[in-house]
């Protein structure tokens, strides 16, 4: 993920696709169901950095029992993200499908991640990315209530 994060960021920084407005990410990267939330937190942290935006509201579905978590995130300046994380399946290869829309173009990534490109859960801080506790608290609240949840403070990095 760190290579994907940096490569996408470099394209965004070049301005080729204009302002980033939407991230769709379907990722099978969690080692098991116990780490689904950790994996979601990391992808959401990366999505927030790509969008350069603070999350305002989240609606989360699924959970450990379902074997997947899907989060719909609405950011303060209008951007959105749909992130779905699941567990690595039988072939043992993590997979990340990404569509990132800018207001003048798009970035697509659609493939298995070679082990050397995958990032073990919990290591995101090594590349200088922080998990948003308030965002993940809101994800938990949404999963428990079945409703959307406001993110307190609206900050991506804490």
């Amino acid at each position, binding site marked *: 993920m760190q290579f994907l994060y940096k490569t996408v960021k470099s394209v965004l920084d070049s301005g080729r*696709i*204009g*302002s980033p*407005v*939407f991230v*769709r990410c*379907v990722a*099978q990267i969690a080692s098991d169901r116990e780490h689904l939330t950790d994996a979601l937190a990391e992808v959401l942290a990366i999505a927030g950095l790509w969008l350069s935006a603070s999350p305002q*509201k989240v*609606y989360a*579905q*699924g959970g450990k*029992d*379902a*074997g*997947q978590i*899907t989060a*719909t995130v*609405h950011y*303060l*300046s*209008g951007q*959105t993200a*749909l992130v*779905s994380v*699941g567990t690595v*399946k*039988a072939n043992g290869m993590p*997979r990340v*499908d990404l*569509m990132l*829309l800018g*207001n*003048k*173009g*798009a970035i*697509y990534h*659609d493939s298995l991640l070679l082990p050397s490109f995958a990032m073990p859960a919990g290591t995101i801080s090594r590349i200088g990315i922080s998990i948003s506790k308030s965002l993940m608290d809101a994800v938990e609240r949404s999963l428990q209530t*079945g*409703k*959307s949840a406001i993110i307190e403070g609206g900050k991506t990095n804490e």
Partner: protein
Amino acid sequence: MSKRQKPYGVLLATGLRTHQENYALAFAADPRCRLIAVTDEADVPPHRAAWNRKFADKMNLPYIPDLDDALARDDVDIVSVCSEHERRGRVAVKCAQAGKHLYLDKPMTCSVADADAVVAAVEKAGVRSQMFSFIYSPWAQSAKKAVEAGAVGELVAVHCDMMFAKGNPGTAPPGKQRKQDPHPTRFTFVDSKRELRATGVYAVGLIRWLTGCEVSTVFGVTANYFFAEHAKNDVEDFGLLAFTFDNPPQPPRKRVGNITATVASGRIGWMSHPQGGPNCVYLIGTEGTLKIDTYQPRIEVYADEPPWMKPPIHLEDPMSFWSSTQDEVNTQPKRGWVVLRDEGESSNDASHFVDCIESERESEMSAKDGAAVVEVLMAGYVSAAKGDVISLPLPR
């Protein structure tokens, strides 16, 4: 309605600058059908009547300027209804009451009340109905087979992206959250469509058909990311939906449990995709994940030839909604991706409707299904306005 002899007579309700441009050709390509005439309501505005006449001339068909007169003909079996969104429900009801089978443009109506009225008219008249969708396309059929074969185990989530790569983006005011009207009433503009409806309809219909479940809750977000035209008309160019389902009423396979689904839909600009736009579905199951894409399997072609260029803007159709206006500005197809197709596969949605009429069975995207899709989409607007999850059914 009595069973008729082939060929089935097909009446075209509303013509040029609607999807009738495509549906008429689909019916004409089916040897079981014969196009009868173009028609419309007697009081349509002059520019609409002129487009209808022009379309009739193009198709070498008569134009019958009063729908009632056209429906009185006994050589009409099917009406292809492509009238503007705001009057589509009214026209469809009238056609069903005349005992004609209904082939309906998508979305079926602008409101839940209109959708209910169409369903009631269809059921009372005992006619067949079908709303245009992608469910008969080869990639959707592949997805259905995969679900039914348990290719991913028990289905736990479905995600669908349905977007059109058209228009010239980058003009919408950036950095603003859209303020959504919970009950929009105007849907027809020269230069914009409500894209949550216009493109989301395909995704919602597809997911509902794939899962065999009714949607029970809807969370929606609408946005203005790309086009000044949409922002000016207070119409979204992008929309998201997330929903949950009731369990299926009659389990054709394993109980799906807490299945969830999401939809991303919109119009994203000519140069944002190597083909027509992201059209794919992710099937997330207990045993694996499948991504089924309308552009897979494919070959990719790179050649020493001029690169694809977006067409000049047609002033009367700047978003390139219609085939005729795209032809008028000489829009060229993108040729880099060539999708593999089995020549035996038929993706003619109209022919599948004729199959249903012939075999006296309900379409898998009947008016009743179309009404359920309309309800999900309208709930999406209410959710986007209120910022919260909306339970179905909506209040009547």
